[in-house]
């Protein structure tokens, strides 16, 4: 199977714009892999071929790169790709329990997708949010300070199509494909949504203000 002419034309337009940002075309490979993932929900055979062709690389070279990086999926991710941080800090704070209760609740394990294609699961490493532990992500948006109950509710809501909102993110949760498009370097217009900072991010500032502490003038 190959992309239809319409899809191909659309991808080519985006790809050329992305390639144009870089002094050397090959630098666009990671963004282009995100781009084809935004088309298929994973990096498909067609996706690999497209990247190879447009950059003048062999397909083997492209596969060699895509398989190095965990964010490129080799089979379709769910519409909502859910991550549970299981690195030490989050694991200890409850991430391990969240993982075991969530997988039991959903009947799927790591890197698997529910039969309806809605939700896939991944054990993720430290996502630079340890002060919000235990941390989860959906389509790489932050869902901070989770519990086993909130985690199960979250995936149930995702499967039911209910409106769920990240704790530090936009007022709308985009799909895995849409997220991949942003990572390709083609952002949507939701950057202004959501808070600047919340909770732990503001703790030091709050204490400084309460005590009248400032940096030297």
């Amino acid at each position: 199977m190959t992309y239809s002419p319409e899809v191909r034309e659309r991808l080519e337009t985006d790809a050329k714009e992305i390639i144009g940002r870089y002094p050397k075309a090959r630098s666009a490979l990671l963004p282009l892999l995100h781009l084809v993932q935004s088309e298929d929900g994973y990096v498909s055979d067609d996706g690999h071929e497209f990247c190879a062709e447009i950059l003048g690389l062999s397909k083997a070279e492209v596969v060699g790169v895509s398989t190095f990086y965990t964010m490129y999926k080799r089979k379709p991710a769910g519409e909502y790709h859910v991550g549970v941080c299981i690195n030490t800090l989050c694991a200890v704070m409850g991430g391990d329990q969240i993982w075991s209760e969530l997988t039991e609740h959903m009947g799927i394990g790591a890197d698997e997708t529910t039969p309806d294609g809605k939700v896939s699961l991944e054990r993720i490493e430290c996502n630079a949010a340890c002060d919000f532990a235990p941390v989860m992500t959906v389509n790489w948006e932050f869902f901070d300070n989770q519990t086993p109950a909130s985690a199960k509710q979250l995936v149930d809501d995702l499967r039911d199509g209910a409106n769920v909102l990240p704790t530090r993110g936009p007022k709308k949760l985009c799909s895995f494909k849409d997220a991949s498009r942003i990572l390709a370097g083609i952002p949507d217009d939701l950057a202004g949504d959501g808070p600047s900072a919340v909770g732990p991010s503001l703790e030091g500032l709050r204490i400084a203000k309460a005590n009248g502490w400032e940096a030297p003038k």
Partner: protein
Amino acid sequence: MTTLTPILTKNWDLPNSFTLEGYGDYSAAKRALGMDPDAIIQAVKDSGLRGRGGAGFPTGMKWGFIPQNDGKPHYLVVNADESEPGTCKDIPLMMANPHALVEGIIITAYAIRANHAFIYVRGEVLHVVRRLHAAVREAYEKGYLGTGIFDSGFDLELVVHSGAGAYICGEETALLDSLEGYRGQPRLKPPFPAVAGLYAAPTVINNVESIASVPSILANGADWFAGMGTEKSKGFGIFSLSGHVTRPGQYEAPLGITLRELLDMAGGIREGHRLKFWTPGGSSTPIFTDEHLDVPLDFESVGAKGSMLGTRALQIFDETVCVLRATLRWTEFYAHESCGKCTPCREGTFWLKQVLKRLEAGQGGEEDLATITDIADNILGRSFCALGDGATSPIYSSVKYFRDEYLKHFEIGGCPFDPALSTVWGAK
């Protein structure tokens, strides 16, 4: 008593801190572009700023290594890969205050005579990626990026580049390979990036917080910056407290503050518990215990006590946490993230994981402690990059401080701890 010094975090409580309106007018960049580039490098040297990405290399000196009038393009690459376990400062910084980074990039690029800059941001932080794109777009619209910035004749293109999930891409030369469209595996040094970096051209790679600190140095002067901190670790930094503290979060303070002081501000260890062990600068820095509460958190003092300041990622664990469990989990991380290029790290982290799994299950003996430190000896100093070295930190330090706890596992044939007690909800 050391007090907090909000500088980079100062505007984070404004609802629009991530916009130009909430940030300011780039007056430091405006002034910098009227200066001699070498004078900027000198000011950053004089400030004493050292890299905030972990290694603490003097920033001005790094910039000074870029050869001038060599006829080659120069590049600035910002390392926004933030993936070292425990490290969580750059992500909230870019979420709330991306313009501090963009302004720092303009000043730095001008100083090193680079006309092309990149922010290599880890991919798993979608809203931060949006905020970076939006900040860069705003800066272009204002004429702070692009051609003829501030009518100075200086041109700068800035690209936001998302990674795709690989801790090793935070290592600066692996990052460059990744940015060139390859698997992210470290390069042999020398040549150093200052000589042959991106596309084999002179390149400066700096951490987000390092670059974001630059506008404040230009605005307030090198002396102002050097007036904070300790003799050889000058200035301020963001200290990230996580884990079993009452109020985890980001605390911006002069280098040299102690964990005791920070814990006082953060309401102490969670109620009814006491400090057991902590990392001063992420999982790659040897753990400390309650003996180290008064160690000044600067590069020299932490080093003198056998660890590293790293990224000031203070992960706090109380007495409910099994140190073997923590060590094993970190080791699994290193084994997972080892890029496979060199044998000591690829094989060593795999074997460490196997042996530790056995030890955690209580199926081992005292001789296994020699086995894991032997494996670590074969990784440390023999690996191609610092990931391998980092993987040995939890091993050595946990055996050093908690030998008895390892033995206890063998004695009772299992783990003496109840993981439920460590959870946020478990130990009321």
